[in-house]
C-alpha cells in the first residue's frame, strides 16, 4: 500500500433492499492510521456499509475501495489484511476457544502467536471452554482476538461494545489499544457508546439515512460546535439563524440553535441580525452534538 492511498475510499455508494435504500449516495474516506468512529442512528446504513467494506455485500452503484482493492472482487486479499468483528457473532458454537483460535490461524499468513497469547491473557480467556457456554462479553473478546491476532492493516468493528458492561468495554478498549500502540493501524468502528468513541477515535463520521452528514476530528467537533441559547426581545421573531446551524428550536422567547464552526463572529452576527434580550454559548458533549445533527435532519427549520 503506498503512503498516500486511503485505507477506505467510498464514492457515490448506493445499496437498496427492495424499495428501501439502506445506503444512498454515500461518499467518505479514511486515511491510513486514523481511528474513525462511525456514528448514526439505528437503520442509518452503518452495518450495510460495513458489510460492503468486507465484501459480504455488493454495491448497487458507486465504488468501494479497501486498502486499494475492491473487496467484492478481491475478497480473500482484503480479508487477509483486514480484521472484522461483525455485529452478530458467528463463531461455531460447538468449538472450544482453542479450536476457534487454531481454525482461524490457518487463514492468515501474518498470524502472530505471541500477540494471540497476550490477548488470551489480557481477556482472561479459558481455552478449554466451548464457545456456546461463553458469556456475551467473552464471545466478543474472542471475536476481537481473532480479528486482531493476525495484525491486520485495517480493523472494522460493527458495534463491538453494544450491550456490554463497562468493565468488559474497558478490557476491549485495552485490547484494541495494545495492538494499535505498536503499529499505527486504521480502524473504523461503529458505536453508540460515546465514551468509547472519545477514548478510541481520532475522528468521527456521522451518517443518517445512508448519507454522510459530517466527518471531522473529535477535537474540532467538540471545540467548534456550540449551542446558542438566545432570549428574544418582546415581539421579536428569529430572523436569521447563522450559517452552519445544524439544529434549532424556538419555544416562546427562548431560541436554541446548534452551530458548527462556531466563532465569536457567529455570536456577533446573531446579536446584530436579531432583536435579543441576551444570548449565551453552551458547550456540548459528543453525544449532544450527535443528537443535534440527527434531530436537525428530522425536524423542519423554524424560520
Amino acid at each position, binding site marked *: 500500500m503506498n503512503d498516500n492511498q486511503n485505507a477506505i475510499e467510498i464514492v457515490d455508494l448506493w445499496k437498496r433492499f427492495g424499495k428501501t435504500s439502506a445506503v444512498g449516495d454515500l461518499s467518505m474516506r479514511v486515511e491510513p492510521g486514523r481511528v474513525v468512529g462511525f456514528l448514526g442512528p439505528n437503520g442509518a446504513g452503518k452495518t450495510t456499509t460495513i458489510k460492503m467494506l468486507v465484501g459480504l455485500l455488493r454495491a448497487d452503484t458507486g465504488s468501494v475501495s479497501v486498502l486499494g482493492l475492491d473487496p467484492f472482487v478481491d475478497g480473500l486479499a482484503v480479508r487477509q489484511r483486514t480484521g472484522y468483528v461483525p455485529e452478530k457473532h458467528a463463531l461455531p458454537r460447538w468449538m472450544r476457544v482453542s479450536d476457534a483460535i487454531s481454525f482461524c490461524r490457518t487463514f492468515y499468513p501474518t498470524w502472530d502467536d505471541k500477540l494471540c497469547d497476550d490477548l488470551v491473557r489480557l481477556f482472561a480467556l479459558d481455552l478449554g471452554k466451548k464457545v456456546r457456554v461463553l458469556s456475551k462479553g467473552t464471545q466478543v473478546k474472542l471475536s476481537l482476538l481473532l480479528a486482531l491476532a493476525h495484525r491486520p492493516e485495517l480493523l472494522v468493528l460493527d458495534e463491538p461494545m453494544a450491550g456490554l458492561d463497562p468493565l468488559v468495554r474497558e478490557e476491549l478498549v485495552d485490547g484494541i*489499544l495494545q495492538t494499535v500502540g505498536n503499529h499505527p493501524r486504521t480502524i473504523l468502528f461503529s458505536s453508540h457508546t460515546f465514551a*468509547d468513541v472519545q*477514548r478510541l477515535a481520532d475522528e468521527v463520521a456521522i451518517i443518517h439515512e445512508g448519507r454522510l452528514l459530517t466527518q471531522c476530528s473529535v477535537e474540532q467537533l467538540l471545540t467548534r460546535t456550540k449551542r446558542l441559547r438566545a432570549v428574544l426581545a418582546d415581539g421579536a421573531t428569529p430572523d436569521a439563524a447563522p450559517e452552519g446551524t445544524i439544529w434549532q428550536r424556538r419555544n416562546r422567547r427562548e431560541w436554541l440553535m446548534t452551530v458548527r464552526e462556531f466563532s465569536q463572529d457567529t455570536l456577533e452576527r446573531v446579536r446584530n441580525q436579531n432583536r435579543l434580550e441576551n444570548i449565551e454559548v453552551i458547550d456540548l458533549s459528543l453525544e449532544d452534538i450527535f443528537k443535534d445533527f440527527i434531530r436537525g435532519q428530522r425536524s423542519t427549520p423554524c424560520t
Partner: protein
Amino acid sequence: MAVNPDSHIPLYEQIVDHVCGLIAAGVYRSGEAVPSVRALAMELHVNPNTIQRAYQELERNGFVHTRKGLGVFVAVGGIGSAIRQTETTIFNRFVDGIDLGRKTKLGPARIETVFRRAMRAGKRSPGSGAKETRK
C-alpha cells in the same frame, strides 16, 4: 478518574491538564521522565494518537521535551510553567463562576461575598468536602 470521556472538553486537553497537574504537584520534577505515550495510553485507556497530541502541546508550551529514543522529560522550568498553567485553569473556573452569577443577575458585591465564603471554606477543610450542598 484522570480523564472524563463524556465531557465536552476534548480528551487531549484533559490530558494536558492532567500531566500539567502532576508536574505542578511535584510528582515529576525537572529532568525526570514522564510516562511514555504507550504507557499513558494504557493507563488512561485512550488512543495513543490522542496522548501524542497532548505531549506535542505540552512540548510546544515548554513543559516537557522529547529525547529521541529515550522518552519524554520534564523541561527545565517545566514546574514554573505548569504552576502558571494551573493558575490559568483556576482563573477560568472563577470566570465561569462569575459568568453564572451575572446570568442570574447577582450583583458584583454578592458574587464577591460568595467567593470569599468559598475561600474561607477551602482553607478550613481542603478538598471537595468544603463544597456547600445545594439548597
